[in-house]
């Protein structure tokens, strides 16, 4: 009987082992699909290294990256989310668009999966990705919108960027630059969202947080109210000076950034990440070196209720779509970790959200931005994202129309309020 059970036992063990290998093998090959919009190859390279490191530490998991350009991404995202083959990790600027996505039920609730881990992230950033107390994504970077300037061109026109404190100062600077034969401002008007920064930041300066909150509640005429009308009027003042480069309405943002990096314009109102991005997109792939580029914050508006410390910018991050494998969230936690964030901060690619990540910032510029953001009590998210997918795009449309001269500030404000009332 002993020999019989021995043989049977051996066979059983063999079968069990084979079965386990099968089951384990079947469960092991998971692909995590990651859709991103990062146009800076230097940063993408680091991301790829992180992905490979994760794959090495977790055999059986493959991270597949897919790229879509910023504007194309925004346009395609609604259809992408409808597909059952949708990517597992998608880029997000939070705001109303995130809210709409949560309501549509296309995102995975990560609250339980990130318990404990979420304490490593600065609360303000995490809050942006929380809806109704549940966490739907993880923030990865903070950014601020302000003026990047080309030191040489500014000097050529004898304009001191340090002295540009008020909106009127900016207008004078533009006039001086034009008189010196320099293109004052570069903008990617074809994508529209680069233009809406002007209008939005003016609104932030004129009315501050109180105004925006009131408009959301529908008070004071909502987005037709005084603050927003004035923002349009002031923006028009700038537009009337014809400060932008020739054909700006036909230039997409990547092209505009490259244009600025080529040294063809004095200023650009852009997200702080452009500081680095312009190097990759310039024609010579070198762009403006650290000593040639500078930054000044968006000017204040005299009589405005906004604080000078108020900032406009993004809290960007990644979302996980519903039905994604657990490994997707796991990878995100790996990606948004102190090590990786410090590394990316050291490369001056982003302002980190993980506590302690700022230690990696070794560049005066980045430190300044981080400082600005830390001091700010009111960080307004990009309007075209915070107001939701449809209203946001209307904001982009109308600011582009003011810039093109086909809409008055009054009409623009009315259009936004109308879209806001129509909802969705």
């Amino acid at each position, binding site marked *: 009987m002993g020999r019989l059970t021995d043989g049977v036992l051996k066979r059983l063990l063999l079968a069990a082992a084979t079965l386990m290998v099968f089951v384990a093998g079947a469960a092991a090959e998971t692909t995590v699909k990651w859709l991103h919009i990062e146009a800076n190859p230097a940063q993408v390279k680091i991301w790829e290294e992180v992905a490979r490191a994760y794959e090495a530490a977790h055999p059986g998991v493959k991270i597949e990256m897919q790229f879509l350009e910023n504007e194309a991404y*925004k*346009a*395609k995202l*609604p*259809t992408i989310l*409808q597909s059952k083959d949708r990517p597992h990790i998608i880029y997000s600027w939070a705001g109303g668009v995130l809210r*709409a996505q949560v309501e*549509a*039920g*296309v995102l995975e609730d990560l609250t339980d999966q990130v318990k404990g881990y979420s304490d490593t992230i600065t609360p303000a950033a995490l809050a942006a990705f929380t809806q109704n107390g549940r966490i739907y994504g993880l923030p990865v970077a903070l950014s601020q919108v302000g003026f990047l300037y080309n030191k040489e061109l500014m000097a050529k026109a004898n304009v001191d960027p340090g002295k540009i404190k008020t909106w009127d100062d900016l207008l004078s600077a533009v006039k001086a630059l034009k008189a010196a034969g320099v293109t004052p401002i570069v903008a990617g*008007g*074809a994508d529209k969202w680069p233009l809406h920064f002007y209008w939005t930041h003016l609104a932030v300066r004129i009315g501050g947080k109180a105004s925006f909150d009131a408009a959301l509640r529908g008070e004071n005429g909502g987005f037709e109210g005084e603050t927003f009308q004035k923002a349009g009027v002031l923006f028009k003042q700038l537009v009337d000076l014809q400060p932008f480069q*020739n*054909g*700006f*309405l*036909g*230039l997409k943002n990547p092209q505009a950034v490259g244009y600025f990096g080529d040294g063809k314009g004095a200023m650009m109102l852009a997200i702080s990440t452009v500081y680095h991005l312009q190097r990759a997109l310039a024609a010579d792939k070198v762009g403006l070196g650290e000593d040639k580029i500078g930054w000044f914050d968006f000017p204040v508006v005299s009589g405005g209720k906004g604080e000078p410390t108020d900032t406009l910018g993004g809290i960007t991050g990644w979302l996980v779509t519903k039905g994604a494998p657990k490994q997707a969230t796991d990878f995100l936690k790996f990606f948004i970790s102190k090590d990786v964030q410090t590394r990316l901060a050291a490369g001056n690619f982003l302002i980190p959200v993980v506590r302690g990540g700022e230690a990696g910032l070794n560049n005066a510029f980045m430190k300044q931005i981080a400082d600005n953001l830390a001091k700010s009590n009111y960080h307004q998210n990009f309007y075209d994202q915070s107001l939701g*997918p*449809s209203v946001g*795009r209307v904001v982009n*449309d109308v600011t*582009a*129309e003011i810039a*093109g*001269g*086909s*809409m008055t500030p009054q009409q623009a404000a009315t259009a936004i309020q109308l879209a806001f009332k*129509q*909802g*969705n």
Partner: protein
Amino acid sequence: MRGRIETASMASPESPSWLSARRPAGDGRLTVLVLFLPPALLLFTLFVVLPIGEAAWYSGFNWNGFGRPTNWIGFDNYRFVLESRAFWLALRNNGLIIVVSLLIQLPLALALALVLAERFRGVVALRMLFFLPYILAEIATGLIFSFVYDGDYGLVASVWRWFGAEAPHLLASTQTAMVAVVIVVVWKYFGFHMMLYIAALQGMDRSLIEAARIDGATRPQVLRYVVIPSLYPTIRLSVFFAIIGSLQLFDLVMPLTRGGPADSSNTLVTFLYNNGISRMRVGFGSAIGVILFLICVTFAFSYKRWFMRDE
């Protein structure tokens, strides 16, 4: 009565089975009906007819495409469409394309056809050359011309600079964007109409021309009173295609301008895409679709009624 079967003209080499086998009663008529017709009807109903009905249904809702539509708003979407500046611009642009097609493109095609309907060395090559733009994808054509029109690297810019002036950014100006688009439309489609006319000219009854010549008509007179009138049916067809084609314009516009700047080069379909699909405003987009459908159908019906003989 046995009919003679022309086996000689048939392609099948060996004797088909039906010649030899004895078939039971029933010629398979029912089988054909049941087997051959439903696939087409099913596909057609499912993907052509139902969607239009659904478009009408969805147009009554404010819906972002997820789940099922729940927010009924009646005709509000139509009101929004009619109140939207972009819609009227799109309508104007479609109209502009039609007018330019009829007044410039078709006469151009006709003139070319008259020249190329003859026989001479290289005429076939020329015809093929002019037809080539038609078979290229609209999207590729749009991209090629976005290069041609580019303010920095483009051909137009280069020519301008040669004359010493600063190159214009044609696609970035609300005044010139649509004009630029229209030129591309002409470039792409004139060859198609030209081939239609050439086919018609080649099939024309020569004796009419001879008769006119004998009567002493000059060449211009022959052209005006004999040739062109005989082309009326083809011209009518050409006009029909030009108009239907203009209403559908999308692929060409997207790479050039995406409908911008400031909606100045929007067409009805780009307007539909930018609002309905990009922003997933399904109700709004469906309303645009329904309006476009009504335009197409009205046009097709009135055209058939007034100009074309029924089949």
